[in-house]
């Protein structure tokens, strides 16, 4: 097939035709492009505008400063202090092990610091800084700062940390804050507060820190920051300032608290001191204490195990959650009930042979004094703490009348103090026993309830509240720990008004009978005479002993034969001055034996300091080994 010669004109025409077709194709495609652009920029403009705005604006939370906690005189109990951490950003640090080696010469780095660092480094991506040391001393900060140029990727990070300057003192009552965990997160979400906690890492877990979390935390502010694609802030567009948390002035007197804690020495127990007229709690002690500072940045396993498995249970708030048989401290209330309900008159005399028994029964309810107290009236029954008198009184009164009366004094119910986790204690009744055990109430149950044993359980706080009610002529004030709130924004101070929980009217002569008897307890012949000796004010008190293990019929209680943890708890309640009470105190010393000899002297030191400003003599050298 020979190729035909091409006609140049035909060729030119073809070329022109193809140019024309192509030009129209170009037009059509350009129009398609314009249609696409018009769709993006007119129809979908609003949508993309929103996306662009969302791209560039990040809402950064501005974390408020947590409110301070101060005592009634302004002594700081919890504050925010700058802490300095040493941090390493792994991807900026050329040789980590060499860096660590060199750092060891400037700051102390313990093997456990290294271990923690290694662990956190494994969890991070290497781009974020990881702390190698926390809580640098000022000297360490200075030493590192001078040498900083030698350490690329290593930096000092300053941050505000919650600190509790008193350390072990008042730890249960102040509580602590700690990292927000999943449980807290769930609760915050339930309460619709998770926005408030954006940027906040810590939350109150115990004590005042927990109960007043909403006031202490403050209001989180926010800042709209323009960002680039990497999320780096470029400039601030708008800002809502955060509002710091409110400062809380507690009813606590830090010095009194310290005096009370030191009075315990190495003994375990609890003490609550209340102003009877207002319900203000001046001291709230649970011994031993713990250092709340350990919890703020997450407690390490070692310390946690120490605290948690210690047989001394330092984390247990004995004043709020410890339930003990109140023992003989119930006797003044029993006596008042007898007078009020006209079961017995003050001058009724009972002959105490050393035991109480039901007619026709050989079972002996023994008095603590072998051989008995002989002739006993109401006053002597309190002064000498005669058990037999109260066995028979209880038997005459009946458990339900006792239950109703003690309930009015706050037994068996929460006091309503401003702390979380309070327990109610227990004052039994026939109804209660039926419900709880499906058992009938026995007369014997009543008898031992008369001396505060059996089912009866009370917290040291409840005992203090009941004592304060007695001191306050029958008006029970709600105990509280916050005296005033200082609002961060306005600086305005709101005082917390005292609240009445219960008012009972007693005949003045009945109150006087009980008071005089309690004053007698502190005098020669009384069970707390030693503790009352030489007091420059009149004190009304009552000792108590709470059995930890039962003593079988025919056996004798022998303290030295029992291990320390099975020994009786010592109790003491008191108020002073007796004629115009300013302070009511309840003391519990675990396994302390007799209330008069271990618990009462602690109360005495508290009264001496509070009423006279008298500091106890410096503590005698204790058995704590020194280095």
């Amino acid at each position: 097939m020979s190729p035909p010669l091409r006609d140049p004109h035909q060729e030119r025409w073809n070329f022109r035709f193809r140019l024309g077709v192509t030009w129209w194709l170009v037009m059509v495609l350009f129009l398609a492009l314009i249609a696409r652009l018009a769709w993006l920029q007119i129809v979908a403009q609003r949508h993309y505008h929103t996306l662009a705005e969302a791209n560039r604006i990040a809402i950064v939370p501005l974390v408020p400063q947590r409110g301070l906690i101060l005592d009634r005189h302004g002594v700081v109990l919890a504050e925010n202090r700058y802490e300095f951490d040493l941090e390493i950003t792994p991807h900026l640090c050329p040789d980590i092990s060499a860096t660590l080696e060199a750092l060891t010469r400037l700051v102390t780095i313990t093997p456990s610091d290294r271990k923690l660092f290694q662990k956190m480094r494994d969890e991070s991506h290497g781009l974020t800084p990881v702390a190698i040391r926390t809580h640098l001393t000022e000297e360490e900060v200075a030493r590192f700062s001078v040498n900083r140029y030698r350490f690329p990727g290593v930096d000092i990070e300053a941050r505000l940390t919650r600190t509790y300057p008193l350390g072990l003192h008042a730890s249960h009552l102040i509580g602590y804050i700690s990292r927000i965990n999943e449980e807290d997160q769930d609760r915050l979400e339930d309460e619709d507060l998770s926005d408030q906690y954006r940027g906040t890492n810590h939350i109150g877990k115990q004590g005042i820190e927990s109960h007043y979390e909403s006031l202490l935390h403050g209001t989180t502010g926010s800042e709209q920051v323009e960002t680039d694609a990497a999320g780096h802030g470029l400039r601030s567009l708008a800002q809502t300032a955060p509002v710091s948390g409110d400062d809380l002035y507690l009813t606590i007197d830090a010095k009194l608290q310290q005096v009370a804690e030191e009075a315990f020495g190495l003994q375990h127990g609890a003490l609550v001191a209340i102003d009877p007229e207002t319900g203000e709690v001046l001291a709230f002690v649970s011994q031993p204490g713990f250092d709340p500072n350990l919890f703020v940045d997450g407690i390490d396993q070692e310390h946690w195990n120490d605290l948690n498995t210690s047989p001394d249970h330092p984390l247990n708030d004995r004043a709020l959650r410890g339930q003990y048989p109140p023992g003989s401290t119930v006797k003044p209330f029993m006596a008042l009930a007898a007078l009020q309900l006209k079961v017995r008159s003050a001058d009724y005399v009972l002959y105490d042979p050393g035991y109480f028994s039901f007619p026709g029964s050989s079972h002996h309810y023994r008095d603590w004094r072998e051989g008995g107290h002989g002739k006993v009236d109401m006053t002597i029954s309190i002064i000498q703490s005669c058990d037999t008198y109260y066995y028979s009184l209880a038997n005459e009164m009946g458990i339900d009348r006792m239950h109703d009366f003690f309930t009015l004094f706050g037994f068996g119910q929460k006091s309503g103090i401003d702390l979380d986790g309070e327990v109610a204690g227990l004052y039994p009744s026939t109804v209660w026993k039926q419900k709880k055990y499906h058992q009938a109430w026995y007369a014997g149950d009543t008898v031992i309830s008369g001396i505060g044993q059996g089912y009866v359980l009370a917290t040291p706080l409840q005992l203090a509240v009941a004592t304060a009610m007695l001191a306050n002529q029958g008006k029970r004030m709600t105990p509280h720990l916050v005296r005033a709130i200082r609002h961060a924004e306005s600086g305005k101070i709101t005082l917390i008004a005292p609240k009445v929980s219960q008012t009972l009217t007693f005949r003045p002569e009945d109150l006087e009978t009980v008071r005089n008897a309690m004053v007698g307890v502190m005098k020669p012949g009384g069970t707390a005479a030693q503790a009352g000796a030489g007091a420059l004010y009149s004190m009304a008190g009552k000792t108590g002993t709470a059995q930890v293990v039962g003593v079988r019929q025919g056996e004798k209680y022998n303290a030295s034969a029992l291990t320390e943890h099975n020994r009786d708890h010592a109790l003491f309640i008191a108020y002073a001055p007796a004629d115009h009470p300013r302070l009511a105190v309840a003391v519990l010393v675990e396994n302390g034996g007799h209330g008069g000899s271990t618990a009462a002297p602690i109360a005495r030191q508290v009264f001496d300091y509070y009423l006279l400003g008298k500091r106890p003599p410096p503590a005698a050298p204790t058995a704590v080994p020194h280095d």
Partner: protein
Amino acid sequence: MDRTLLHTTLFLVLFSLIVLYSASGEELSKVLSQVRNLALAFGVMGLVARTNPQILERLAFPLYGLALLALIAVALFGEVSHGARRWLHLGPLHVQPSELMKLALPMALAAFFEWRSRTLNWRDFVVAGLMLLVPVGLVLRQPDLGTALLIASSGFYILYFAGLPWKVMGLLSALALAALPLIWPLLHGYQKNRILVFLDPTQDPLGAGYHTLQAMIAIGSGGVLGKGWLQGTQSHLDFLPEHTTDFIFAVFGEEFGLMGELVFLGAMLVLITRGFYIANEGSTPFSRLMAGALSMTLFTYTFVNMGMVSGILPVVGVPLPFLSYGGTSLVTLFSSVGFLMSVHHHRKLVKQ
């Protein structure tokens, strides 16, 4: 010199510098560097505009041979970077032979058709097809799908204007469509990914679809009038990738809006139309074919880039004529314009 071409080009150049200043994050040094590129490109344009197309025609085959050899050299000892073998190191020079082929292939094909113009038959189209497929295949192997398609399209325009029968084109498109499922398994992972993401950019907004999505946000949020010069948040806050090169149109669209885009498209349409007009009055088959193909290449770059940035075409590395920053593409572009000027200038000299 053709005034229409010159004025439109000058207008677009001024326009591009204004856009580049904003797109570079108000970096004057980048604008100045582009001004240097422009000076060079104008020099080349002037040189080409004053050269007789016949001289260029004589250069066509040697240039094509050189480019082909370089492509083979790349395949054998090219430098691997980013997983692709594209660059050739000749002493201090780093050459990307596929760039050279973008001009060499249409020139060689146009020269071939001029040579065969008197006795053109179907065998010539087969030979031309082979001249096209060999370099395209080499570039595809690098792998560089985008450039291979651009080279293929510039060669195809010559075949098309030279009179490739419509029937053959219909058959070829049918074959291409049928071959798609066969080609798919041969594609590289990232190439498949680009196509999948193109079909639905939202499926991977932080990965492969990120570029397109951010570009669409930029353009869409610009609206009809745009956010104003230097006011585009998407580019200034670094959300846009490649915002001075392949994605500069998104910056432009965000700040100048639909109105600005219409002005730009209008100017491009003037250039292309003028190119077609010049092609029509070309004196030799070589100059006619080249003028038509170069105009269409100009259109192709514009359409593919804008289509990619606005999300109707998959992401391929194609610069936007005039607006994108970069020396090589400017020189190629301006020599094309220069060639059109030359064809226009030499239209009558041969006619007589």
